[in-house]
């Protein structure tokens, strides 16, 4: 905007805040979001509310019997082992998400400067573990890297390392679980971040270049701020996905040894499908929903308040 003499009555923001105003366009906005909102309400939100209602009952053989209020929740949170699982899951998710995000960001920045078929090829290689059937991917990961008769252990044995059994030790088993989480989600984090990078107008870089910004300055002054929304989306999805992922703890590390890799998703699975304790399983399921939603909204708020 002009810097011409304007001593009186400038209303800053009047320009930037403007939107399409006419009434019929305002109605159009509602029209555009309605199909999606209706679908979400019917397919995700209503069944979840029903799930909450279901969780307020005494469940026997999967049937909701008498109404017992929050008893299922009370029983769950008074389980001393439950809180160990919560803490373990939090730690696991935080570490796995941080690792994945940092690696995915650097990889997508690197891929973003590639062109042509090679760029496509690199993308495909990075995303491979995400596109293979998740169960098969986890089985193969375990077979090749972790199993006694897999390539990885064979290779170690050939080098004279016989004592190292990654999933037999609590610490290394957790490391394997984190490694698997990164392996599984890296490609899709890259995909989200890459699409964000592609949406940044090139003009900004040219302008910054003319202004004499270094590569590092361009990264911190343009790329990262412009990537805020994609990073936030990736952060939310990675967190939710890792908290809810079952293949890793179930197939790769089995939750052991001695519960070292027993995280919430596996705990839920075991409650429901090994112990047939649906009362606490459904309470845990709904509780995880609530926690995930709060986490997602908190992230969003956090990023907004810093924007």
């Amino acid at each position: 905007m002009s810097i011409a003499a304007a001593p009186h009555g400038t209303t800053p923001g009047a320009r930037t805040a403007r939107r399409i105003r006419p009434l019929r366009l305002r109605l159009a906005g509602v029209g555009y979001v309605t199909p999606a909102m209706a679908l979400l309400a019917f397919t995700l939100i209503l069944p979840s509310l029903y799930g909450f209602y279901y969780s307020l009952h005494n469940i026997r053989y999967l049937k909701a019997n008498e109404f017992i209020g929050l008893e299922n929740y009370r029983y769950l949170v008074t389980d001393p082992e439950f809180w160990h699982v919560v803490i373990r899951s939090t730690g696991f998710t935080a570490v796995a998400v941080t690792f994945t995000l940092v690696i995915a960001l650097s990889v997508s920045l690197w891929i973003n400067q590639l062109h042509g078929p090679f760029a496509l090829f690199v993308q495909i290689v990075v995303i491979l573990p995400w596109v293979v059937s998740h169960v098969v991917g986890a089985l193969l990961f375990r077979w090749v890297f972790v199993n006694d008769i897999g390539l990885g252990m064979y290779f170690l044995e050939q080098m004279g390392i016989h004592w190292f059994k990654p999933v037999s030790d609590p610490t290394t088993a957790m490391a394997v679980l984190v490694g698997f989480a990164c392996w599984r989600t890296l490609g899709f984090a890259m995909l989200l971040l890459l699409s964000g990078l592609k949406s940044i107008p090139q003009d900004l870089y040219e302008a910054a270049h003319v202004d004499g910004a270094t590569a590092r300055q361009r990264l911190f002054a343009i790329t990262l701020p412009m990537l805020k929304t994609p990073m936030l989306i990736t952060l939310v999805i990675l967190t939710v996905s890792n908290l809810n992922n079952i293949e890793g703890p179930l197939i790769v590390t089995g939750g052991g040894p001695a519960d070292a890799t027993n995280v919430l998703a596996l705990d839920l699975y075991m409650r429901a499908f090994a112990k047939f304790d649906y009362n606490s399983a459904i309470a845990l399921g709904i509780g995880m929903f609530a926690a995930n939603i709060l986490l997602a909204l908190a992230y969003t708020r956090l990023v907004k308040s810093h924007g």
Partner: protein
Amino acid sequence: MFGLDRTTRILLRAAVASLSILTLAQQASAQTLRMWTFLDPASGKDPRERVLKKLIDQFEAANAGVKIQVEPQVWQQMTDKFLAATQTGTAPDVMWVHLRRVPDAIKLGALANLDDLFAKKWSKEEADDIDGSFWRFSAKPGAHYHITHSRSNVGQFYRADLFREAGIDPKSLTTWDKFVAAAEKLTVRGDNGVTTRWGFGQAFATDGANNSVVFSVMLDKNGVIFDEKNRANWATPAGVDGLNLQLDMIRKWKITQPGAVNEKNDDLYDQFNAGRFAIIRGASARIPRAMTALGADKVGFFGTPSFTEGKFSPAEVAGWSVGVWSGSKQKELAGKFVEFMSSKEADRLWTMEGGAVPIRKSTVKENAAFFADPKNAYLADVAAAMLEAGWFPPDGAGAGWNEELNRAAQDVLTNKTDTKAALQKAEQSYNRAHRL
């Protein structure tokens, strides 16, 4: 739309093409029987699936206008899905229920009384033929609700070739002392002290846990693993001895791989096939698959040793209980099909072509030559072990005892927890899950 001109066109065309060839689910007509099982007769990749297909063809031929529509399901979820579908009225007419969930299904009222449908009409001879622990187990509140197929029993798989080489007779390994001695003999250590073959492969992971040595020892010594209120009762002398025996195979005798602490049953079968383990603890239903990989002459099965010469310890049985959904609109017809699948002719097929453990005594009697064949000897061994030491969960038992006992084993190995304390912890966890 969305301006993806070329891409969109390709996709839309593909979508239309797939729509047009997609066959929609047929609405169940009056003469269509729906059945849920984990067997997929259309795929026919497994001998038992081929038998099922044959039986369906025969039944459809004998009952004009009837169609059996098999809806194959994922086996782990199938029973739960049935329990849920019972409430929504979408359950199938014929259902294969996991043996361990049968009491739940009956309590929910999901299964129809087979006595009313057909078993009452059986002659005494016919009834005696099918009678046995499984049939008695199916009679919960005084009536029979299912016939159990695909019977299986936890026991020891052994590499027959290695046993022959070492000159060990598997039939002689009825006590733990002899068993351990044999396993020590079968364990091979290289010059560098690295074990290339373990005598007895075990797996203590909680996912998909089978019942382990401690379980059999407790049943052997105490006869029960639950108290009168169905509470877990494991921190007993028998439990401590059993768990110590199980873990000493690693700690003392070094015949079990230390990795057992967090390995799974599925890993055991793979390792067994790879020749890394001479004996593993496994479910007999999986013998045919091991035979496919290794050859029928290299795989055998024997029961769980005990502390008494010449006697096996009890081990849990498993199987798939075929019944009729109580809400079915065609119970008579469904009952007829269940009866047919369990008939003498059918059992012959299941056993001789499908490699299943026979459910009728007559099948064994009338096909002596088949069972005498060394290739099929394992079927007799499994049947014998089941007959002698098959253990059914008591009425009112919960689930997850195998998982909890494995957690105790992991706890002792990893945290050096006292054996009794670990068992107490497992008890508490079990009791808590079942509000006991």
